[in-house]
């Protein structure tokens, strides 16, 4: 059954997410990223890992502010794809959405993979280098299991999300506080930065990997459609979320470089090593960095060694599930906007879930898993990867594509924000990112957002770093986009819709409907008054 062909009004999502629920929703998505990003960045960034996180973190704050403004102004579930489509048109909206879909499929595999890595800290049989086939089978089972559960319509509850998020925030805060109070030595940090500063190529690679720790801001806009009074709640919870994630990333990287280990760490010849030195050329350690770090906190580490791997594995699995769920939801939104075939809107007659979207994007996640696991499973494939792709391991392959998808979609979101400020100055913005230049465009007062320009330059540099340094990412990422654009053009041609242009849409009526459905009646009245004043001014000028 195609939803678009029915005459009945589309069912709306229930607005039942509270401020804490909104924070937990975002945190369960973005908060898990540091569990993956830390080890990868320490492996390549060495003494400059904290600088890589700082650069990516500044860009992330700009992205977070942009998403906060856009989600509070246009509280719909489409996310970046919707903002870009509204600001830049259908084709760019499709490209942004397609890049987000790449990220969601990677999200499924990468987080399931890392969830198994964290579990391997307690179950050594799951260590990838020792038992690659078992590792592969378990990750594959998790991906297929999540796909099956999503087809049935089983999701973890908001309450469970909130509980795990609260537990994780508490645990990470405790680890960092105790770590900085009892195991951190600034002289070790300075020593690592002075004597282990990486080459420019490695620093670019580390910076592009650091953005992996900040992916998932789509959840802010996803939550917006189900939050009560989103224009008021989203800015409050987003600022807390942005700062929390930034602090965790900066804190972990600084602590890892300046950590005085509780138990001495030595290399094969018995020489003492700093903590961060266990990550280069060791994919097993890279996949469970937070668990390894927490073990090294004096006394508390004995307890943390038991529960952090479990907490990490659960949080990562929730994030993996959000990839399965999110990809089907974005595909549904894109299909509703005629950016993807209506096939992706079809729901299962019994389970009422978008079964085709779920199965299609889970299948892509499985293909990505096979590419990632291949070098460990088949020796001849490993030789091929070494020859053509700098010998990247599975985790790096997935992180490459994750960074590429995020940098591409975020770049378009900044451009979309700038375009919307210029084209739609009449929509009330309860939250506006700071540092604006006032100007007049077509007779209307417009605030040009400087932060969006700074953020765009930052994220575009990260995209260039990704293309320059990721041997696999620069092939598979653009290939994904090109294949998507071909699919889009073919579909638009088939439906006799503008291929490079945009469909005509009445954004004014849509905005009124969005604000009414969100319960933001004051903002709706303000918007209608703005429209009336603008129309009267134009009529007077004419």
């Amino acid at each position, binding site marked *: 059954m195609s939803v678009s062909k029915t005459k009945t009004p589309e069912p709306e999502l229930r607005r039942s997410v509270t401020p804490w629920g909104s924070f937990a929703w975002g945190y369960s998505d973005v908060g898990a990223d540091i569990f993956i990003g830390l080890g990868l960045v320490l492996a390549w960034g060495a003494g400059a890992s904290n600088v890589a996180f700082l650069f990516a973190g500044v860009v992330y704050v700009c992205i977070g502010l942009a998403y906060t403004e856009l989600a509070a102004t246009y509280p719909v579930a489409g996310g970046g794809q919707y903002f870009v489509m509204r600001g830049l048109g259908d084709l760019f909206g499709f490209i942004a959405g397609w890049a987000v879909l790449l990220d969601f499929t990677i999200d499924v595999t990468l987080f399931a993979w890392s969830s198994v890595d964290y579990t391997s800290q307690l179950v050594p049989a799951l260590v990838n280098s020792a038992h690659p086939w078992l590792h592969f089978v378990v990750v594959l089972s998790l991906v297929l299991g999540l796909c099956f559960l999503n087809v049935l319509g089983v999701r973890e509850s908001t309450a469970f999300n909130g509980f795990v998020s609260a537990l994780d925030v508490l645990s990470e805060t405790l680890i960092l506080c105790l770590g900085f*109070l009892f195991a951190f030595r600034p002289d070790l940090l*300075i020593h690592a*930065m*002075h004597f282990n500063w990486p080459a420019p190529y490695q620093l670019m690679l580390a910076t592009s990997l650091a953005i992996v720790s900040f992916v998932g801001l789509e959840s802010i806009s996803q939550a917006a459609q189900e939050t009560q009074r989103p224009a008021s709640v989203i800015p409050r919870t987003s600022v807390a979320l942005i*700062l929390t994630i930034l*602090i965790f990333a900066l804190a972990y990287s600084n602590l890892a470089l300046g950590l005085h280990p509780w138990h001495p760490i030595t290399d094969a010849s018995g020489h003492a090593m700093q903590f961060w030195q266990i990550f280069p050329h060791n994919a097993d350690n890279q996949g469970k960095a937070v668990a390894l770090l927490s073990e090294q906190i004096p006394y508390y580490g004995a307890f943390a060694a038991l529960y952090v791997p479990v907490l990490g594995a659960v949080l990562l699995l929730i994030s993996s599930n959000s990839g399965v769920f999110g990809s089907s939801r974005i595909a549904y939104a894109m299909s509703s906007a005629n950016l993807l075939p209506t096939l992706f809107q079809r729901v299962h007659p019994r389970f009422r879930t978008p079964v085709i979207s779920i199965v299609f994007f889970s299948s892509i996640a499985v293909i990505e898993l096979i590419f990632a696991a291949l070098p460990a499973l088949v020796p001849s494939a490993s030789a091929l990867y070494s020859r053509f792709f700098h010998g990247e391991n599975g985790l790096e392959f997935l992180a490459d594509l994750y960074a590429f998808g995020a940098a591409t979609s975020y770049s378009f979101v900044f451009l979309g924000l700038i375009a919307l400020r210029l084209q739609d100055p009449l929509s009330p913005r309860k939250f506006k990112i700071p540092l604006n230049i006032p100007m007049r465009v077509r007779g209307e007062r417009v605030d040009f957002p400087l932060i969006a320009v700074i953020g765009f330059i930052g994220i575009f540099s990260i995209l260039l770093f990704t293309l320059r340094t990721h041997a696999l990412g620069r092939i598979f990422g653009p290939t994904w986009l090109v294949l998507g654009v071909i699919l889009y053009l073919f579909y638009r041609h088939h439906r006799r819709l503008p291929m490079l242009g945009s469909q005509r849409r009445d954004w004014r009526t849509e905005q009124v409907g969005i604000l009414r459905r969100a319960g933001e009646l004051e903002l709706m009245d303000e918007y209608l008054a703005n429209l009336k004043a603008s129309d009267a001014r134009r009529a007077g000028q004419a």
Partner: protein
Amino acid sequence: MILVGIVILARMVLTLAAGIAVLPGIVLAGAMIALGAHRISLILRARKAA
């Protein structure tokens, strides 16, 4: 959070001689203090509203 931020800030300030290398630590301390202050302001606002 504010307390740990102040401790980190104090320890990083003691190593100011290392130059630019202390910057990430100082940014971290500043962010921790800002988040702590943000949370306190939220709690105070909620109490005021109640």
